[in-house]
């Protein structure tokens, strides 16, 4: 096991990704201490992730997190899907960003590459409405059938609830249900 010091690998991922795909293919490339950032188009996402995972000098084999940022309505492209990878072997991380427009909120599913992405992508669909295309068994993760909308989008009203059962009106005033008492 090689431990890489805090700054030794800065820019490492950016450098190798550029060498492999060409600088023009990367929408964004930033070198940070132990966590480089690489942005790509959707069409290159699977190739890039497979490269980061399999390249011997990168070994970013662990998907730490997969999440989404909603820039809000009118912000184009509206969504940024974020993949955070780590190399347990070499001791550094990378962040891969993919921008997704609102009218075509689809990303290729990375679950075939990283099984850990399974529930993250179900959450991505459930809460942000970004569709992971090719997911092996896409279902809701957290919400329930009948829920309309995607609550982590910025235009979902903060206090809007969609209860499944009617609530007892004036709950404090209502007496407990009066089934016959006295079997004590």
């Amino acid at each position, binding site marked *: 096991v090689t431990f890489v010091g805090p700054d030794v690998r800065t820019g490492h991922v950016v450098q190798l990704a550029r060498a492999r795909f060409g600088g023009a293919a990367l929408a964004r490339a930033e070198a940070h201490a132990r966590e480089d950032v690489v942005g790509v188009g959707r069409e290159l996402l699977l190739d890039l992730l497979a490269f980061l995972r399999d390249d011997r000098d990168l070994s970013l084999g662990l998907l730490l997190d997969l999440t989404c940022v909603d820039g809000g309505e009118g912000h184009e492209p509206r969504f940024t899907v974020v993949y955070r990878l780590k190399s347990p072997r070499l001791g550094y991380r990378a962040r891969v960003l993919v921008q997704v427009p609102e009218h075509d909120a689809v990303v290729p599913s990375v679950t075939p590459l990283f099984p850990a992405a399974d529930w993250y992508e179900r959450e991505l669909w459930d809460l942000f409405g970004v569709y992971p295309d090719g997911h092996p068994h896409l279902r809701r993760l*957290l*919400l*329930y059938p009948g829920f309309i909308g995607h*609550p982590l989008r910025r235009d*979902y009203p*903060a*206090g*809007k*609830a*969609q*209860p*499944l*059962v009617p*609530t*007892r*009106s004036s*709950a*404090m005033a*209502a*007496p*407990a*249900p009066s*089934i*016959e*008492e*006295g*079997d*004590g």
Partner: protein
Amino acid sequence: VGAGLPRQADLLIVIGDVTHKAAPVLQRLHARMADPSYVLWVRTQEAGAPRPALYPTAADVTALVPVDVTLEGDPPSPAAALDALARLRQRVRAREERA
């Protein structure tokens, strides 16, 4: 004595928030309890603090099941917990006297 079934239980303790997804389950569970039954809600918040309405959770458990006693505090103090039990005993006694 452990109660194996909701039907045999006397007290339902609800701790914290209930999600909208779980609300039907909670109501079904409560409906199965034989009368007389009681509900203690551990409202994990200071007394009087407003509970924000959010997309996943029901803001108020009293709107789902008839709550007899609410225990407040974040977290509830031991004194508040004892007080809640005392209030629960009062409820039980009042109900037995009525019967």
